[in-house]
């Protein structure tokens, strides 16, 4: 294997033009894929407050349907408050609203921020990084205490970079007291992202409490050893028992699933059953392979055209004892080494592109990083690219008859 690698590197270094053209195609393809993976990782990876995705089930979507009417959207507080409490196999559960954009004036300055109403359990299901202070608890929710947690960005905009705990500000007609400040959460983390978090009970009315479809979501932290399928099943059973007090609708549906399948099902593949993340992962892989397909085909063509150029080498190697299998291995290793070099170039370019994206502010508080998980995906994609684009040329080259190859004939 060592000598095969050595030969592969020598061949690539000696054929500079071919190597450059191939590297460009490989690196660009992998760059796009790696940036996509880094973004997906920022949304779904176990980091920030959502660091336990394997133990977290979420309820995002709810749908009411009847013979002539249909209403769907985020889950309603009424649905979640009837189904989540005291769920077997669940350590904690939380009900929280989706972010809402509000504009307020503070000391003569206009400040726009995203707010999110939550219960006290929210801070235990999701683990925020507190810079100062602490979260509000269930008592704040029960007593509708006018308190809030800010992120660093909101703190800076309201009060400047110093300490903010104990200070007050006005939002949505209420004066709120800051009890804690957390590090910014990227806006793509849509379960937890906000600038200001405050108790749900501070809402102007309590009409939200009855709604089955609304602007809330729920999350459950599974107890160690609990099976997600059991909890999902129990949730589905409970949904079936929730009374519907609107004659237009006969059925209420909602499901508890992992964040990945819930989000994919909600945004990307609406209509797919969110309990089947395998299908969604399969579709994502298919997209990645289709995206890799064109440059891979290009590389296949380049490699096939090089059979002519390398015929003598193939003939010589076969004459001196190379089996077809050994030649397939050699050409595959060459292609994988090429893809590997492309992967390294792509990783460097990805780091640069992600840094530019983070600084651009296109995605608020984005923390796209080339972490080990993303790099791991990069290695896997590189291997897939190297193998997919190398198998056919390697097989064709290895099948050449040694005499024909030595004479430059390719029958």
């Amino acid at each position, binding site marked *: 294997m060592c000598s095969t690698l050595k030969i592969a590197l*020598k*061949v690539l270094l000696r*054929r500079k033009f071919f190597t450059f053209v191939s590297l460009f195609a490989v690196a660009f393809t992998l760059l796009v894929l790696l940036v996509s993976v880094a973004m997906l990782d920022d949304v779904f990876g176990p980091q920030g407050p959502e660091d336990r995705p394997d133990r977290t089930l979420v309820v995002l979507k709810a749908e009411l349907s009847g013979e002539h009417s249909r209403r769907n959207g985020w889950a309603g507080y009424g649905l979640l408050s009837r189904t989540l409490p005291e769920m077997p196999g669940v350590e904690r559960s939380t009900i929280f609203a989706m972010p809402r954009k509000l504009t307020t004036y503070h000391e003569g300055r206009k400040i726009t921020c995203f707010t999110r109403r939550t219960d006290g359990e929210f801070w235990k299901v999701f683990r925020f990084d507190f810079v100062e202070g602490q979260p509000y608890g269930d008592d704040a929710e029960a007593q509708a205490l006018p308190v809030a947690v800010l992120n660093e960005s909101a703190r800076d905009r309201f009060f400047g970079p110093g300490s903010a705990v104990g200070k007050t500000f006005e939002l949505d007609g209420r004066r709120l007291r800051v009890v804690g400040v957390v590090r910014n959460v990227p806006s793509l983390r849509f379960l937890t992202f906000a600038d200001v978090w405050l108790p749900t009970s501070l809402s102007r009315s309590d009409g939200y409490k009855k709604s089955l479809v609304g602007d809330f979501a729920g999350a459950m932290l599974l107890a160690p050893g609990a099976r997600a399928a059991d909890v999902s099943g129990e949730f589905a059973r409970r949904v079936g028992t929730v009374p519907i007090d609107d004659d237009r609708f006969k059925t209420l549906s909602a499901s508890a699933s992992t964040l990945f399948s819930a989000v994919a099902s909600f945004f990307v593949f609406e209509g797919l059953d969110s309990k089947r993340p395998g299908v969604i992962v399969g579709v994502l892989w298919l997209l990645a392979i289709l995206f890799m397909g064109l440059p891979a085909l290009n590389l296949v063509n380049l490699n096939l055209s090089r059979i002519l150029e390398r015929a003598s080498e193939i003939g010589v190697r*076969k*004459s001196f*004892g190379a089996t077809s299998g050994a030649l397939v291995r050699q050409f595959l290793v060459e292609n994988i080494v090429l893809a590997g070099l492309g992967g390294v170039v792509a990783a460097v370019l990805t780091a640069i592109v992600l840094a530019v994206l983070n600084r651009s502010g296109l995605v608020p508080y984005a923390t796209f990083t080339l972490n080990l998980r993303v790099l791991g995906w990069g290695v896997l994609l590189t291997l897939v690219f190297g193998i997919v684009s190398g198998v056919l040329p390697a097989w064709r080259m290895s099948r050449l008859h040694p*005499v024909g190859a030595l004479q430059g004939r390719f029958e």
Partner: protein
Amino acid sequence: MIRLQDVSKVYRTDRIETTALDGISVAIEKGAFVSVMGPSGCGKSTLLNVMGLLDAPSGGTVSLDGAPIRGYRDREVAALRNAKVGFVFQSFHLIADLTVADNVEIPLLYRSMAGAERRRRVAAALERVGLTSRRDHFPTQLSGGQQQRVAIARAIVGEPRLLLADEPTGNLDSQMGEEIMAVLHELNQQGTTIVMVTHDSRLAESTHRTIRLFDGRQVQ
């Protein structure tokens, strides 16, 4: 060493059937230096390819070291070629991307052999052909004679007992041709069996025996 019994080779395309070898029976003894002569297209190279197990005969039997070759399965004939046969081609067929040493090393890559041992054998083979100082050069940096000597080093590095040379001096001037012949004679004296295709009757006369072919048939 190698025996061909009533060997024939027929090439078939959609419309044409060409008989390259027809009823060839030849025995090459161990330690012999045999030349193969005949006009162009008479089947000399085909005979060499069949002897070297690069091509399967259409009929008849090829035996190497007393064992008949059957089936011509890729893995088996590849192992036999690697262990027992070395090739020298008229147009050298050196790999331009690899250095002299890397070219010579090729047959050893298909054996389970430690890197240190491979390097030792490559150095020994290059010394035998007088090219130790050129080990890190690329083929294009060498003269024709030197390239053919590299090809010979590659053919003998695995210490095969049979060396098949297809017009080894065909692309060289007379002085370089003589140098190559001297190397081949020296190898033969050291025990290597050699079968050489040539057009040059002077070179054929310097071998132990000559097989003459005409239209795929053995005439002498």
